[in-house]
């Protein structure tokens, strides 16, 4: 059962070093043969690469745990990445910080659906906002 009191919960900052090898690995795993990822000396990240925050975000930096979505009924409903300029390149050190933006309920044909949204902002070392990720999870009745 989703805990609506998780709204507003903010995680501790976490570090995501954008690494060349990780970009190449991710590009291959998504069947890309684009030299912009596989050959460039300082490749940009693929559009969905910041999902690799999975590796670096846990415990106090992951407020999603407070949502307490039932894993047997929880689904990834939507995902969005916004880049506030060109995507970050290998060699960039990003600081990510996540917050629980909303919990909303909607009546569906088969009962109540509960949507939870987590927003993660990524800043570079100069403090510029580089990217924003938005995860929407849904728990079915």
């Amino acid at each position: 059962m989703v805990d609506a009191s998780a709204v507003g919960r903010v995680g501790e900052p976490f570090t995501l070093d954008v690494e060349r090898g990780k970009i190449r690995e991710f590009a291959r795993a998504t069947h890309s043969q684009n030299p912009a990822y596989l050959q460039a000396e300082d490749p940009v990240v693929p559009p969905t690469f910041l999902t690799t925050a999975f590796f670096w975000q846990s415990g106090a930096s992951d407020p999603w745990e407070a949502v307490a979505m039932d894993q047997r009924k929880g689904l990834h409903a939507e995902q969005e990445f916004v880049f506030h300029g060109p995507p970050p390149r290998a060699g960039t050190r990003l600081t990510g910080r996540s917050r629980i933006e909303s919990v909303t309920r909607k009546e569906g044909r088969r009962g109540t659906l509960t949507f939870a949204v987590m927003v993660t902002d990524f800043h570079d070392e100069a403090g510029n906002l580089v990217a924003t990720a938005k995860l929407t999870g849904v728990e079915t009745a």
Partner: protein
Amino acid sequence: MTSFTVGPLTRTDLVRYQGASGDFNPIHHDEEFARAAGMKAPLSLGMLQAGLMATWATDRYGAQNVRSFRVRFAAQVFPGDTVTCDGTLVRRYTAEDGSPLLDLELTCTTQDGTVAVYGWATFAADLAASDGDAA
């Protein structure tokens, strides 16, 4: 414009994506766990399909040009399925700061025509990287 077909997807495709992304949910690789969760087999990752859609889009509009990428997951995909990513350029416009942008609508469809993932993307318009597709 040419679509991008991948498949049939294998368990190895799923595992390789899990290793790359860091999402190690066992429902995507552990046969027993997946069956206990009511699946016929390990379920593919929505984010793998999203990644394939991103591959299609960045091949056409340039890796450095992506400005936003959003997906909504609509149907499950399993190993053995063949998925096709495609998209349409729906809008060319100028942002408030004067930079030219393109909006795309994307789909990832399984072999029976079911749309598994819907997507929306915005790219900076870079004529050099475009394949000349008309709006």
